[in-house]
């Protein structure tokens, strides 16, 4: 089964996103910030990552940059899932290595559509 790492400091978002991603056929793993996510990727690289931008300890932007430099870190499909809606920030996220970008609030249709565009479903 494909795995999806959900990275968000909000427990509620992790729960809601986790339910949607499970319905798409993924096994989910959770991380509460970018550093926690990097540690989990070091143990077992997931197929997909759904990551928030603003988080304590390490934000999503730094997480993606670090992930892409890790051995095997080029493999996961990374989808930002954030309230940040500035075009400049979206462009930065893509340049840092994100594959897709979801703006909150989201619903299951949006996550499914973005995962489909990224070739995950």
């Amino acid at each position: 089964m494909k795995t999806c790492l959900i990275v968000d400091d909000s427990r509620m978002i992790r729960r809601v996103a986790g339910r949607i991603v499970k319905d798409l056929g993924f096994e989910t793993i959770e991380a509460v910030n970018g550093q926690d996510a990097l540690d989990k990727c070091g143990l077992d690289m997931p197929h997909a990552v759904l990551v928030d931008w603003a988080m304590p300890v390490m934000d999503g932007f730094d997480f993606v940059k670090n992930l892409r430099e890790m051995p095997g870190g080029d493999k996961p499909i990374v989808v930002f899932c954030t309230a940040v809606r500035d075009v400049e920030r979206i462009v930065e996220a893509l340049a840092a290595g994100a594959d897709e970008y979801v703006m909150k609030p989201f619903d299951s249709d949006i996550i499914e559509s973005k995962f489909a565009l990224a070739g995950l479903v």
Partner: protein
Amino acid sequence: MSVSDRHGALSLAPSYYEALHRLTLELAGINLGASHAFLVETRLSRLARDEGYESLDAMINELFKNGSSRLAVQVVSALTERDTHFFKDKLAFDRLEKIVLPDLHRKRGGGRVRLLSFGCASGQEPYGMAMVLDRMSEQLEGLKIDIVGVDYPSQALDRARQGIYTHFEVQRGLPIQDLVKYFEPAKTDWAVKSHIKDRVEFRDVHLLSKLDGLEDFHAVMFCGSLPHYSAPARVRVLRGLSGLVKENGFLILGRGEDLSQMNFGFDRVDGSAGLYKKREIPVIVEPEIDESLKVPNGRTTFEKTSKRRKTSMPT
């Protein structure tokens, strides 16, 4: 089981739901199906509010008592509006990009080409076509392309003209790179940038009426609606479309849609389900009368032949 039994407490008298069902079938040729009470409640309540009626009941009373044709079209348009999103039918857009546009470019070179989105609803399809053209601009160099989107006059078509989409609409089917390239923030929504918006013209057209007012097109996209039409309406709309597509032009249908037993003057493009090419009008060799050989009774003793074009109706 009555409509109200199926759906619990509703705003309108049950007979109105049946009347709206019949009206939609007659005006648009579309069968709303058994669960249309939900559509009536959600879409028409919004229309009633926007049109300034006190309630849905007040608007429907007005519709059936005074018979306003403008209101009838608005009501039917609201009921038949498709739930669409950008690049909804990926296969149809692939056909456009990989087969239709390269073929038109090869044959027409630097000419002008017209594309039609038939039943364009809130505009995602024709704007999607404009994005494909933008991406292919180098490959299609020299080809001038006009895009027209047509549908019933409706709130959806008004929104298409505005080119403004919600946060949710731009996140369904649209890659993030396209959002950044072709849209700009507009308060909480997103507006299509002018270089895409200006390529598309929208027109109010009754899709089942005679389509004489429309010019002919090199390619027509008609995706996602065909299965909802009644059998007579399907024949009518396809016959109308046949008259709009130029010889050797294309008709692109949606995934899983086809012309079934009838061909309306089209041939299916080999290996491409849902893609059809309009036949050339055949050149028929007809006898030409040589006046010098006519005998006094008006009959001809000898006929020579020459090529002459004769138009024939598509089958």
